[in-house]
């Protein structure tokens, strides 16, 4: 009888506790000014660009997430934004994946450390549109229609092509993807992540697939290639980081061209090479959080990124900004940086949502087996 009473009491306590925890704490009072910014869908809505800047300065801070300083030159972009407007940028979780950004937004909802803006991979963005606030930047018209959501819920920001980065002082220069199967590359080739988890690795396998006779619809030759790479002893399952690249632990890395180019600025012998006729590209997605703790600063950040200054800073980091065509026509593009982009031979391939889903299924079923 006593044990029954004890377990009943424990269960009651447990359910009460969890019910209490499940409900969120009451919303903090917010002043009317930020409310206006929180629903502004363009600079005009917020009362004009100057009003937006003033409101953002009043907020004083911006929370960004998953923006490593050497990723498409974000380090310089963050610094430039901070100096130009006097706003403190809090950069959290530089290693986070796109899903981590969404998790943080959900877990930190209502707190002042929640992320204000997102920079996401396409798949995660499309799945979480409900979390975004629509906003059309001043330069909206310059962005190609295929690279933005008509309602302004999200916009592509920059893109690049899949490349192979290598340390020219440690390995011979590869001329094609198939070269990597040679004995010179034994224990040296790394992929930036697991393709069933990271978008960059996924595109890496897609590129290997196209280079080995596959296509955007068929990722199997890519998995086959990595299987052969593993069998030859050339595949290194280590996660490549700036530290492993600088120390020579990962002399060959499959990664976005702008990331490899950034490593090249730190290590003089690091070169980037986009294989001919196996050009896989992808754009990342920029969005503003609906529950942003600093809504005006978030929108100002967006305006900055899509201004000529922001777009050229991305270009400086080796990424291709979405307004590149418009800026080239207008002559505002940074010509030196544009010319310094890695040479690309062949038509770029951008996987559609259907093709991505099909490839995902194949990878989930076969990747672990192929390289396990």
């Amino acid at each position: 009888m006593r044990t029954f009473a004890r377990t009943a009491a424990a269960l009651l306590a447990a359910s009460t506790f969890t019910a209490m925890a499940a409900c969120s704490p009451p919303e903090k009072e917010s002043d009317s000014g930020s409310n206006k910014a929180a629903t502004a869908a363009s600079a005009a809505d917020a009362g004009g660009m100057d009003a937006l800047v003033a409101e953002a300065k009043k907020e004083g801070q911006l929370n960004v997430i998953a923006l490593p300083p050497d990723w498409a030159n974000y380090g310089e972009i963050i610094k430039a934004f901070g100096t130009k407007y006097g706003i403190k940028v809090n950069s959290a979780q530089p290693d986070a994946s796109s899903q981590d950004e969404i998790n943080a937004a959900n877990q930190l909802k209502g707190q002042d450390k929640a992320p204000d803006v997102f920079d996401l991979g396409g798949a995660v963005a499309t799945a979480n549109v409900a979390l975004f606030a629509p906003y059309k930047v001043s330069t909206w018209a310059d962005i190609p229609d295929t690279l933005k959501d008509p309602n302004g819920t999200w916009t592509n920001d920059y893109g690049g092509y899949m490349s192979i980065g290598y340390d020219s002082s440690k390995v011979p220069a590869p001329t094609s993807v198939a070269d990597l199967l040679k004995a010179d590359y034994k224990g040296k080739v790394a992929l930036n992540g697991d393709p069933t988890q990271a978008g960059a690795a996924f595109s890496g396998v897609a590129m290997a697939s196209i280079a080995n006779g596959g296509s955007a619809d068929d990722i199997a030759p890519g998995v086959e290639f990595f299987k052969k790479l593993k069998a030859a002893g050339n595949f290194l399952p280590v996660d490549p980081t700036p530290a492993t690249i600088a120390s020579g632990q990962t002399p060959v890395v499959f990664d976005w061209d702008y990331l490899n180019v950034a490593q090249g600025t730190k290590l003089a012998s690091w070169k980037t090479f986009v294989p001919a006729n196996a050009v896989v590209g992808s754009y990342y997605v920029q969005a503003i959080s609906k529950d942003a703790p600093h809504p005006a600063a978030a929108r100002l950040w967006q305006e900055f990124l899509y201004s000529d200054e922001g777009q050229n800073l991305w270009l400086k980091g080796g990424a291709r900004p979405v307004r590149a065509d418009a800026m080239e026509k207008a002559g505002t593009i940074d010509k030196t940086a544009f010319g310094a982009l890695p040479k690309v031979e062949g038509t770029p391939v951008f996987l559609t949502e259907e093709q991505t889903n099909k490839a995902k299924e194949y990878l989930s079923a076969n990747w672990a087996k192929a390289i396990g």
Partner: protein
Amino acid sequence: MAGLIARRARKQAAFRWIVLVVLGVFFVLPLIAMVEFTTRGDQQTWSLLVDWPQLSETYPDLAEGIVASLLQASFTALMMLVLLVPTAIWVRLRLPGLRRLVEFICLLPLTIPAIVLVVGLAPVYAWVNYFLGGSSLTLVFAYTVLVLPYAYRAIDAGLSAIDVQTLAEAARSLGAGWGTVMLRVVLPNIRSAVLSAAFLTVALVLGEFTIASLLNRTNVQVAINFLGKSSATMSVAVSLAALLLAFFLLLLLSLLGDRRRASR
């Protein structure tokens, strides 16, 4: 008998040195690799590291992270001492039936990986944030829970070694209240165990990364990780420096912990 003891002391000394040398080599090799990486070529890593004003100017987040970590370590150790030590002793003495339950609870934080624990901690921290704000110090609540397995095991090992029941009965029969029993009779006998628990607490808090990172707060490991994005060699150097810092802190702790014994 004296000859026997001397012979045993020599055998123990030989055993001690063999074990220390073999394991010492195993432990020191990776550290040597880290030093080698940070002193390769003509880099300025260590000279920048010891230049504190220059360092905090180039990497301001690092100073913030170090201070946050030191505060977190002190408060977590305090919280652990206040919460866990009396409970462990109390349960041992008065509620032996609850021992298994307390042991399981104290092992629970280890069964759940940090990334999942954050999912569960998020709603609790929403409330913490509402009452206490979002400073990095509020991580102390989560850290006290994280440190439970290690601290409890150390204190429990210490309590197993002494005959707590007899000590307590003897003290009670001489008229001591339960407070006196715990504070003045049992506690001095498990000093080494409590010190070990404090060690583990400080070391754990200084080495913790995942929960601080996922809750978007800062500590030394988060700062080092961020640093690593700009400079690989600097982050490895700072990691080594953080290890050394923790080592000296613990050494200090052990010297202070014994100061009282010397004064008796």
